[in-house]
């Protein structure tokens, strides 16, 4: 198997992530989800928790995993007043997908990672949808899936943003 040239190019060695930063970003995503979205914006809103969780599962599969996903899911269920466990299940499956696919996704440049991420976010939405339909809900229409597409579009900015603190500064080189 021939290595692609890109891997041989000189690369920055990234600093290790601080656990506090991971927890902070996950809580921040949860917080953004809690903002008073309403009307059409609510349909366009991607699930930020799913997005950030997926990022960490792909970047740090050893550190972020099922427990974080499950607990965040429970909190999300309570905040939404939804059936207990639906987000917990969806996020657990999302974390599984992220952990299993993390090597593959990281091989691609950011622009192509989006194509890997959108189906995963769609899967997340689909699980919640199926559980709601099972509990007697109505199909809310195709616009329900818009959030996953927007989430995919936000993947690149989010990953650049979350990687910022890992870039070595000039001072740390000295």
């Amino acid at each position: 198997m021939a290595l692609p040239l890109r891997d041989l190019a000189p690369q920055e060695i990234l600093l290790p992530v601080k656990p506090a930063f991971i927890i902070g970003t996950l809580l921040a995503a949860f917080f953004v989800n809690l903002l008073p979205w309403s009307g059409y914006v609510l349909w366009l809103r991607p699930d930020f928790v799913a997005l950030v969780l997926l990022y960490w599962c792909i970047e740090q599969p050893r550190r972020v995993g099922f427990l974080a996903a499950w607990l965040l899911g429970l909190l999300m269920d309570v905040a939404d007043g939804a059936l207990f466990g639906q987000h917990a299940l969806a996020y657990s499956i999302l974390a599984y997908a992220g952990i299993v696919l993390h090597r593959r996704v990281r091989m691609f440049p950011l622009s192509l990672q989006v194509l890997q991420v959108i189906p995963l976010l769609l899967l997340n939405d689909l699980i919640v949808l199926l559980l709601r339909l099972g509990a007697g809900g109505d199909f809310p229409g195709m616009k329900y899936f818009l959030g996953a597409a927007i989430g995919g579009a936000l993947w690149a900015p989010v990953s650049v943003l979350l990687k910022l603190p890992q870039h070595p500064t000039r001072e740390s080189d000295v």
Partner: protein
Amino acid sequence: MEHTPPPFFKTGPSATARLLIFAVLSLALLITDARFKYLHTLREIASIIVYPLQRIAIAPAVIARRTAEFFVSNASLRQENARLAQESLANAALLLQLKSLQSENNHLRGLLGTRERVNNDVHAAEILYAARDPFSRKIVLDQGSQQDIKEGQPVIDERGVVGQVTRVYPWVSEVTLITDKNHLVPVLNPRNGLRAVLAGTGNDGTMELQFVPLNADFQTGDQLVTSGIDGVYPPGLPVAEIGNVERNAAYLFARIYCRPLGGVNANTQVLVVGAARPMPERPPEQAPAPVRPKKSRRGGGA
């Protein structure tokens, strides 16, 4: 590329095993929550964790609203003041009438020996946020069991019924709006006294009268008020206005669409009406019919 980690790295159970554990846990929670209502304490604990985040998250919106309120022009304040004074005058006349009617009603009820029906214990609550869940119509109020809110209390605004408290946490409570798909309000058409059941459709602006015969006298423009026979909503609160009546002989029932009168989506403040009225005890369940011995049933079938 390797697919399994070398055995000398400790990695714990495999990802699939962990997924199974957490999936089973979530499914167990789901089923327990949907079928039995055992998870209230767990929900309360989680809601206490979420509460500060919720308050901070809506803070910008609250600050923006307060700032907007601060920069109101003098003219518009005067205008509003004049309008309110006028309204209060008009209401005062009605209130006087109401008082005399109430005393008369009490007197008549006393004569008839029936129970008191009207409950005036009301307190105001602020809407923290509307549902973020695209599947259900819910709002969250800033008062909970600490402020003596109880499950089942009706929520109204100045124009009509908004919904019903369905879940109470220590500091917040969830209100299911009357437009929610699973919500029913027993209503009455004051024009002719016909009773019906008004169901939400899951859409914001429409509700539907259910199981109304084709020839029932419901007309566009009729106002519907609560009938009070459910023991949840006090009688006589305006709920909805009939918008569109379809009578198609192919169906068993008429399709009657209504518009909710209360500002189901537009308010920032609502009123929670006092505790549910005491209802008479349910009649005891009828004793099950004596089970016939198997032998005789089989003999009858033969």
